[in-house]
């Protein structure tokens, strides 16, 4: 049983989506996250264990390696896709209450900005960290963040911006969120922002990479 968990951890960490996927070369022809998750569920492994002992540590390793420049965006995306192939099979157990997530994370690219790759990677990594994701997409203003918060009380919010000309919109959104839903934690990220900017607009945390976002969220959840 634990062998399946180990194999799934490896498949997700190295981005093996399913058996027919050619990537990564060293796992060619072997079962991927899709098959291994199916086998794990069928053999009666507790889905919560699949999440906590395989997916979360696998994505944690991916996040750390990305943080250290050991891997780059394509490998991270492949891992996220492998995780997705596993997660889709775990979704029913979340719905039925057999599995619990660590919390809800609402994420969006701020008003005026259309760049979403960075935001998508963070969403995938946070999902792989055991959180439920509400992705509001791009060009999102404070009203939509507030609406999502009202539907998901206690959720944490993540704001992304890629342009110096749009990161200024973060300040207004943080103020709107903190005014309407006091106590909400807001983290920010994106190429032009930094910790000083984060402080200046009253956000709670600046995440320089996806892994730091996951670590911050896990601290909040613990």
């Amino acid at each position, binding site marked *: 049983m634990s062998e399946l968990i180990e194999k799934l951890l490896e498949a997700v960490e190295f981005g093996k989506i399913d058996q027919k996927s050619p990537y990564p070369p060293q796992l060619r022809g072997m079962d991927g996250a899709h098959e291994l998750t199916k086998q794990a569920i069928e053999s009666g492994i507790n889905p919560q264990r699949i999440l906590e002992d395989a997916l979360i540590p696998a994505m944690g390793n991916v996040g750390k390696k990305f943080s250290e420049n050991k891997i*780059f965006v394509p490998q991270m995306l492949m891992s996220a896709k492998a995780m997705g192939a596993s997660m889709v099979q775990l979704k029913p157990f979340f719905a039925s209450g057999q599995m619990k997530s660590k919390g809800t994370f609402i994420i969006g690219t701020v008003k005026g900005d259309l760049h979403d790759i960075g935001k998508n990677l963070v969403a995938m990594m946070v999902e792989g960290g055991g959180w439920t994701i509400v992705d509001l997409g791009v060009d999102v203003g404070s009203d939509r963040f507030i609406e999502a918060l009202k539907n998901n009380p206690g959720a944490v919010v993540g704001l992304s911006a890629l342009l110096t000309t749009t990161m200024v919109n973060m300040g207004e959104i943080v103020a709107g969120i903190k005014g309407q839903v006091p106590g909400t934690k807001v983290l920010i990220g994106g190429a032009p922002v930094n910790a000083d900017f984060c402080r200046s607009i009253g956000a709670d945390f600046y995440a320089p990479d996806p892994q730091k976002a996951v670590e911050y969220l896990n601290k909040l959840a613990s």
Partner: protein
Amino acid sequence: MKQHKIRLYPLGKEITVNDKTPLIDLLHEYGIEFPCGGKGTCGKCRVSLLEGEIEISEKHRQTLDRLHLSSDSRLACMSHCTDSITLQVEQFDHLILADETEFEFEPESGFGIAVDLGTTTLVAQLVDLQTARILAVETLLNPQLKFGADLISRVQAGLDGHSTEMTELIREAIGQMISLMLAQYQVVPDKVVIVGNTVMQRIFSGMDLVPLSCYPFEVEDLGMKTFTSEELDWDFQVSKSIHFYPSIGSFVGSDILAGIAATDLHKKEKFTALIDIGTNGEIAMGNRDQIICASTAAGPAFEGSSLSVGMRAVTGAISSLRLDGAKIISTVIGNTEPKGICGSALIDAVAILRKLDLIGPFGEIGTGEDSLRIDGAVWLTQRDIYEFLLAKSAIAAGIEILSKNLGIDTFEIEDFYIAGGFGNYVTVEHLLATGMVESTEEKIHKMGNTALIGAKMFLFENGDLASEILGKTRHINLEGHPEFQDIYIGKMMLE
């Protein structure tokens, strides 16, 4: 180190260079074009030696014989400075185009000025409209550089209240360049044609930058802008017109419009692509029926600004790298100690490191260390390699998405024209090896500064050529394509 004085006739310029500096490095700065990319095949960079000596190799002599050039002729791309010399530069005497037969101009009396207003560099040429001869050239760095290297930082500076200052700086700089050229000839120009990207057009014209700062990035009034010398505060008269040519879209300007004119993209039967790799990377693709174009966020790495060892193509920059067995041989601009690496050599470096298996298919350094030595004190870090992968995949994804929009496969594109200063140095083999352009060597053509070539062509027309091209050309947003993310990330790999 030994130095030499190089005099350029008829420019009247005198430049001091280090011993063994390749002539291509020197002349490139003065707007000389090397259509074959310095391979010695086209003969367009020929110079006449008026004084001093240029050592000549056997290959160089054979090339001169093959091209039937006289004994005092040299090809700049095969020459090095080993003596103080005076050169007559053929390109200053003739309007040089990749295909001269297709450029038909109606001789007019008078003089014109063509200006390529780049985000980083400015180039202006004084042209005799009777003969299309280039009489003088001036180059300058864009004085707006103090507000940042890339376009978004210029837009940001505009929002921060520096719009008027940037407008004044650029008008003054171009006015000075023109004045210097006019002073040599004591003539009154009839026409000035300026081309540049949309942000440069709006700053020069003193227009609002807010629409370019955020979504939906929609800009009204992209059309031709017309000025008088008084409005621009220029101290010389222009007898007929001063035009800043129309932009194509929010981030694709008249420099690409000029590039389309220069490559005759709008007349081609077969699918053709123009790739201009400058501070921004723009791509135009199509044929005589339709052209689509887009901008990509490719620039910063190729201009060196986002790399730890990056620099522009100036003295001390490694301009190219090649492999001799397993040894990496570098060429340094100005033949000095290498201080950094410019965009063209960055492509060489990544292609060579991959070939030697020092980096893997994701650009990862095999040893697990954080950097690799290229030459002397120049190291490439893991981060630099990733920056390159982002830039190259931006271009490669742009090519693929434009192809999809035209309903064709990338391999159906018959010709790729590589423009921009970068294009003169880039090694085609390496461009292909990195997957930045997915094609074959014979389909890749280096074109030099197509914006400037097109601007010169616009001196001989009344706006009809520009209207004809604009009528066929659409601008698209690459990120709007539903598969953008997967294509973009997929192209980051090195096969």
